[in-house]
């Protein structure tokens, strides 16, 4: 994890910070979801506890902690208690490998009478050279927590909900994977950080061995993969089991789906997994199609120069400032997508189960195969059309 104590400490802290960020985002997102739904439906939403109902989160947390511990009579204890914990794992492991910002370069310095550095710290939990394959692999473990919960609670609603949810997840995983194939075709790498750095500058493409530059647009993936973006976006909605794809817990049919028998803190862990999944999806959307941490019309070098003048030529401080600026840009993009998730949830009605599966298999799958062939053929005809 590092060559000396300082680097190891920083890397471990970094990793824990990313995980705690995911956990901490949950109450904020729940508040946003409730206020947002209230706004959309002309209600007030939580507004009693604290200003704008903000401390409602703390009250909710206390309520969750003080709930009665409960194990249904016929439940299998190991699976019943294991499922919520397992639900956290895919989202946490995937989020930790997302590159959030430009790396921080620490020039050599002295501390405790010893020379340290130089170091390069990536603003991500850990760096993976097969980033996207790793994320796909880890997220494909998500079905287990659903199945464990559904079977472990020995309730037919739970089991039906779990089966529906996992069938839905694996169906849309195909369209998701095929959309990612097109992305890999475009950038020619599995490394998320390299994908981001390929999207800097103004929109540039080659066609018939001439280079064209469209200076009013940033060089973002969405302009090369509009169809892929739509497919990916729809698939991540379905993967996260939220409205309009929340067939797993359609109240009219299945009470609450796979978490019918869950309450209190165990329920909260499922929520953490779900919102963590939303964060991973939003980050991937930003990285694949919206330039990652890049800000349109601003280069990394110019921001670094500005930071240098601000920090009085301290390269380490300037590097940290640059990183923070781009981190803010990335987080703004992620926040926009998260808001979009909430917006859609409270706008569209639920699909019927057969419509949902038909959409996944008979619409999204052919279109994503078509998208790959289209991308490959255009790339071939233009001999390096893109980027």
């Amino acid at each position: 994890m590092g060559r000396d104590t300082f680097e190891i400490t920083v890397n471990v802290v970094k990793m824990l910070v990313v995980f705690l960020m995911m956990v901490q985002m949950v109450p904020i997102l729940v508040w946003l979801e409730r206020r947002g739904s209230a706004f959309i439906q002309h209600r007030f939403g939580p507004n009693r506890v604290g200003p704008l109902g903000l401390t409602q989160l703390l009250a909710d947390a206390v309520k969750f902690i003080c709930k009665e511990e409960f194990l249904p009579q016929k439940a299998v204890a190991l699976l019943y208690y294991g499922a919520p914990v397992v639900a956290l794992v895919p989202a946490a492991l995937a989020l930790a490998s997302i590159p959030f910002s430009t790396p921080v370069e620490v020039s050599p310095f002295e501390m405790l009478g010893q020379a340290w550095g130089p170091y390069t710290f990536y603003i991500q939990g850990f760096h993976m050279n097969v980033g996207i394959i790793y994320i796909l692999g880890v997220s494909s473990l998500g079905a287990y927590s659903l199945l464990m919960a559904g079977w472990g609670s020995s309730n037919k609603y739970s089991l039906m909900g779990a089966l529906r949810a996992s069938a839905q997840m694996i169906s849309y995983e195909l369209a998701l994977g095929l959309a990612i194939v097109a992305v890999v075709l475009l950038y020619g790498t599995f490394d998320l950080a390299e994908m981001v750095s390929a999207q800097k500058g103004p929109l540039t493409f080659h066609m018939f061995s001439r280079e064209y530059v469209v200076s009013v647009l940033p060089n973002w993936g969405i302009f090369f993969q509009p169809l892929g973006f739509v497919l990916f976006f729809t698939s991540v909605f379905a993967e996260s089991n939220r409205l309009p794809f929340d067939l797993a817990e359609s109240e009219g049919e299945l009470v609450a789906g796979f978490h019918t028998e869950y309450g209190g803190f165990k329920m909260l862990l499922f929520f953490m997994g779900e919102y963590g999944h939303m964060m991973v999806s939003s980050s991937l959307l930003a990285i694949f199609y919206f330039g990652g941490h890049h800000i349109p019309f601003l280069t990394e070098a110019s921001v670094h120069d500005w930071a240098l003048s601000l920090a009085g030529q301290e390269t380490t401080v300037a590097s940290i400032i640059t990183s923070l600026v781009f981190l803010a840009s990335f987080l703004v993009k992620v926040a926009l997508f998260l808001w979009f998730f909430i917006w859609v949830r409270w706008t569209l009605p639920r699909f019927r189960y057969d419509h949902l599966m038909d959409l996944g298999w008979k619409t999204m799958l052919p279109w994503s195969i078509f998208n790959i062939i289209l991308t490959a053929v255009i790339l071939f005809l233009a001999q390096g059309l893109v980027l």
Partner: protein
Amino acid sequence: MMINSAEVLFYILGLMTLIAGVGVVAMQNPIYSALCLVMTMIGISGLFFTLEAYFVAGVQLIVYAGAVTVLFVMVVMLFDLRKEVSSALGGGINTAAKAVGVGIILGLILSAISLSKLGTSTMPLKGLGASSIKEVAVQLFTKYIFGFEIISVLLLLVVVGAVGLARSRGGTHA
């Protein structure tokens, strides 16, 4: 780090894989066998990672842990199999003979490993490194092109077979 972390990783992952593997065989309830199988798959994926086969490790997670074992878990859950615990193991002299046979095979493999000259090799001849992913891809699509194309035919046959079997008599419910 003071200790060689690659070796620590090998022992942790190897132990996890072995324990989970024994679990697959020894668990009476098929649902626990299937969950142990998931642990084995994850452990083996980690072992592939320590061998610098990054892409293979990822594929192991996607295909085995994410697809094949999900199917196993789903089938075990769909058809309540808790009731047939009694028929889990055969018994008597037959079982003992089989166990001895497997012991002999294991002994043969182990002695073959220890007698061969492999033991001297504790280091790769030359590092494959991270560029091995692209090298693997290039070989897969040039040297192994026939195998690659024939895989699609195999998948086609299996699709036909599986749909035919699943749609055979017995209706849509099991």
